């Protein structure tokens, strides 16, 4: 491919000299957080599970975005763009959940969904009651 001009990193942005903690150190932090997110829920405490499982996931995502993807060095509107997409999904879920998440509302009732919850509970109890039910 005869290339008139070598196309090493585009000149427009001087290649960002790496600053901040070394990549391997960041990797170490991420692994630590992974351990926290696995161990935390084992305590079976709901709020701890929420904090460790999902809170840590947010922190890990932030770290990967900042230190690996260098999103902070990038133009600001890139961050705004990605953040807008996430907010859009949040708004969609917020507007849809009164119909899908909840199984009844003003003058309507989703009997089939309520029934499937009861059926799920029953089959779980039945499975648990079986002698030598498989647990792992």
């Amino acid at each position, binding site marked *: 491919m005869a290339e*008139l001009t070598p196309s090493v990193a585009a000149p427009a942005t001087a290649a960002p000299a790496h600053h901040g903690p070394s990549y391997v150190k960041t990797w170490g932090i991420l692994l630590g957080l992974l351990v926290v997110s696995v161990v935390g829920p084992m305590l079976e405490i709901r709020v701890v599970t929420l904090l460790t499982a999902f809170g840590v996931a947010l922190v890990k995502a932030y770290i990967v975005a900042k230190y690996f993807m260098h999103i902070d060095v990038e133009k600001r509107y890139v961050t705004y763009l990605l953040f807008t*997409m996430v907010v859009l999904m949040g*708004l969609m879920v917020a507007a849809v959940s009164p*119909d899908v998440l909840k199984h009844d509302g003003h003058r*309507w009732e989703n009997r*089939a*969904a309520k029934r499937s919850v009861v059926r799920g509970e029953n089959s779980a109890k039945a499975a648990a009651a079986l002698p030598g039910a498989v647990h792992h």
Partner: protein
Amino acid sequence: MSAATETHGHAGHGHDAHHDEGFIKKYLWSTDHKMIGFQYLFTGILMAVIGGFTVYAFRMQQAFPGTHIPGFGRVTATDYNALVTTHGSVMVFWVAMPVLIAALGNYLIPLMIGCDDMVFPRLNRLSYQIFLLSSVVLVASFFVEGGAFGGAWTSYPPLSAKAEYSLTGTGSSLWLTAVALEFAAFLMGGINFVTTVMNSRAPGMRMFDVPMVVWMIVIASILFMASVGPLVAGAIMLLFDQQLGTGFFDPAKGGDPILWQHLFWFFGHPEVYVVLLPAMGIVAEIITVFSRKKLFGYKTVLYTAIGTGVLSFFVWAHHQFVAGIDPRMANVFSVTTLLISIPVAEMIFVYIGTLYGGSVKLNTPMLWALSFIAEFLLGGVTGIFLGASGADVYFHDTYFVVAHFHYTFFPIAFIGAFAAITYWFPKMFGREMNDTWGKVHFWGTIIPFNGIFIPLFLLGARGDHRRIYDYRHFPDLMKAGMQDLRVFATVCLLVLLAFQVVFLVNLFYSLVRGKKASANPWNANTLEWAAPSPPPHGNFPEGLPNCYRGPYEYSHPDRAEDFWPQHVKGA
């Protein structure tokens, strides 16, 4: 490498020295944005013929139920649903989007921002190929056992999810695959458009020097990218429901059909603005050139277009007021729906304002652009009846809705496309279309168009509901005069379809025998008129142009001619 260096003096990079490519390389395997634009355009026209045939068949059944339709035979209930579904899907996904966004976007964007091609030519070619594949998959679905999918272009489960309900099992999955492929094609195309306009503008072309049609196509691509995602996920889930028997949308398995409706319309409403904005851009270009007037408030139009785009993400559930969503949510969406009528109305007011003090030249492109405004006004205005939740209880899923969205979709997909084709034809093919035949086609389309849909407003208000293949089963809908309105609408459709032949003949005849066109036959300002007609590979043989001013400097006080091209340096 210094991309920022002025490549003005550079006498066309290595492209021009290439040997004369063979037929395949030049027409079918080309990576030239103009050729890919033509591929989309002619595929879109071919699909429009399919869309036209389907509407001929089912409107004849509506007017003369149970009779033998010439060219089709008897329209059974199964056929009727398949024809209606095909008409809807083809016209939105395989005519409006390819012609307005992909064909014009591909052709115009590089030319109007003064560069030689899209940033990713091969990705551009691949996006057309996937689009072609989606068209083939859709057409194939007509011939499978059980026939084409018959559950309307919205494909609501459980009807679309279970073969024993829709009786078109294979057809449903092929339809869904075709739509998913089409989404993939337009995601790739969209990324290509947005990146090209962001990065490859001519030196000196600031944000507010970009022509309005380029802005509109970019905003449309962004709207599409941001809204199609959930429906791609929904399509995968529906395909699994259809083929694997999962229960995403099956109430018996804990799934929820309402989830599909939300995912569909979260995409569905931004989608109608995705096709509206390019048409608005086309109209802006044409009315400014042929009234020799600067666009009235460039920034107003741009900000209202962005405002419309943003608001279009918060209105979707007005399609579902009576569809079982929680009635308290309906009011929220009714408010946002009426709010979005404001920016769109403002855009129309600005276009009307542009005519003030102009020197309006009524040739064919201008007639199309002006009729877009006249017709779209009625489309927009009747949307208020449907956006107001109280009135929608009566109007939902009646022919009033059908007439409303045809008064918006027909101006967008057809009037907008005719305006663009007649305006840019000299640039695209280096020849001129016959203006008299153009006017014959114009009046032969506009008058019957109103003849079809005004009766449908009346029928809808009197209770005609949608997708009914034979109204004789409904005594209240066979009252005096109602069937006559249906016959009148169908006759007007036949007249309209007949006049499209005039357009096709004029198009293909002028392609070969039209009068030679100069580089700038309309004395317009935008950069594509700085290139020769038709522009060679690489667009600007004398070097890529710079941009010195906005696109709409017409009748500038301190300039002799009444136009001031963007690439001309001095006065």
